[in-house]
């Protein structure tokens, strides 16, 4: 039971933290709860579909289907996060000023909610399909139903609790700095997801590793430990990265930040992050 709780926890955690960041980044938008809930529901549905077709996906594209699907989902999420941040660098400051003035959240009209709902959907889809396969695999190999269900629920609850904890922490940030902070968080999240995508593309044989292992900091901070896992999800920490992963990370940072800077400047003030 504890074993299954731990694995479900690890899978749920990434999706939960991403949902927390999305909830933070959409602070002040009317109807965001519905969009995010829709993203989660769509993700769960997608996860079940992906799990059911796992065999055909795995066989597709000369056995690279799974890697290509993972890389595509990750890169699509990166694009949506980038779009959000670039939009915010044009409108974020006005939004924060307005929220400060009225002292509570305001309906800010056309924020790129659909982009962040998709980010939620992608995160739940990716992590959820593994969870479904894992639980199905345990059930098929004769694990006891009640113990399995308890374990899965415990893992789900623990992962979701950490997500809520992160969201509460974000809300403690003063509103004047809030969108600057979530902007950085979204930027680093996007860079980390791009580095993960590079790992899958290398596994599919589509990009070279450039270096199998740039460094080994697993002695300092093991990526499998809880702090290591949290940093891996939030800012893309990797204790033994390949060269291509660092390259994807840095290029994503530079491209998104550069576009944010340009868009922010054309709106007559420095970029928000």
């Amino acid at each position, binding site marked *: 039971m504890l*074993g299954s709780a731990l*694995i479900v926890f690890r899978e749920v955690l990434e999706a939960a933290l991403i949902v927390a960041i999305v909830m933070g980044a959409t602070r002040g938008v009317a109807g965001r709860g519905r969009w995010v809930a829709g993203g989660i529901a769509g993700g769960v549905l997608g996860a079940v579909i992906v799990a059911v077709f796992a065999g055909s996906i795995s066989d597709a594209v000369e*056995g690279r289907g*799974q890697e290509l699907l993972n890389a595509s989902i990750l890169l699509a999420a990166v694009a949506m996060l980038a779009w959000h941040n670039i939009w915010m660098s044009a409108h974020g400051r006005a939004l924060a000023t307005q929220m400060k003035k009225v002292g509570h959240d305001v309906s800010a009209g056309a924020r790129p909610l659909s982009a962040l709902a998709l980010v939620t959907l992608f995160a739940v889809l990716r992590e959820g399909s593994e969870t479904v396969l894992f639980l199905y*695999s*345990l059930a*098929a*190999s004769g694990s006891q139903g009640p113990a399995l269900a308890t374990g899965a629920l415990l893992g789900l609850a623990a992962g979701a609790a950490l997500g809520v904890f992160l969201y509460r922490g974000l809300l403690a940030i003063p509103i004047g700095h809030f969108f600057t902070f979530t902007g950085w968080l979204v930027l680093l999240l996007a860079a980390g997801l791009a580095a993960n995508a590079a790992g899958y593309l*290398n*596994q599919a044989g589509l990009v070279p590793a450039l270096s199998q292992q740039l460094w080994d900091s697993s002695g300092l901070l093991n990526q499998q430990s809880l702090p290591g896992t949290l940093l891996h999800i939030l800012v893309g920490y990797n204790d033994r990265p390949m060269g291509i992963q660092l390259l994807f990370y840095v290029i994503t940072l530079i491209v998104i930040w550069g576009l944010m800077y340009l868009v922010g400047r054309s709106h007559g003030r420095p970029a928000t992050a």
Partner: protein
Amino acid sequence: MKARSISLGLLALLAVGAALPAQAADAAYTLVISGHRFEPRELTVPAGQRVKLIIDNRDASAEEFESHDLRREKIIPGNTKATVWVGPLPAGEYRFFGEFHGDTAQGKLIAK
């Protein structure tokens, strides 16, 4: 901008084209998963070249082949085979495991 994205696309195609024939010539090694265990538990492969691992999951349930040392993770549905390319590896030992049954599914790759 457009010319650049086209040339980038061509570059990517060239890279894929260059990678494919090289893979076809490499030797394949098979790992069987049965009863949530790897067989063989220790597999010796040549160092310094790309190696094709065929993972044959003979259990009815899915398994996730995972290795932090090799930086690989791949889900293999029940009663299917999957291919995982690794390397070129420096000589050494690389641990791998089945994430869904980590208590029994353990093994290592030895590159010589």
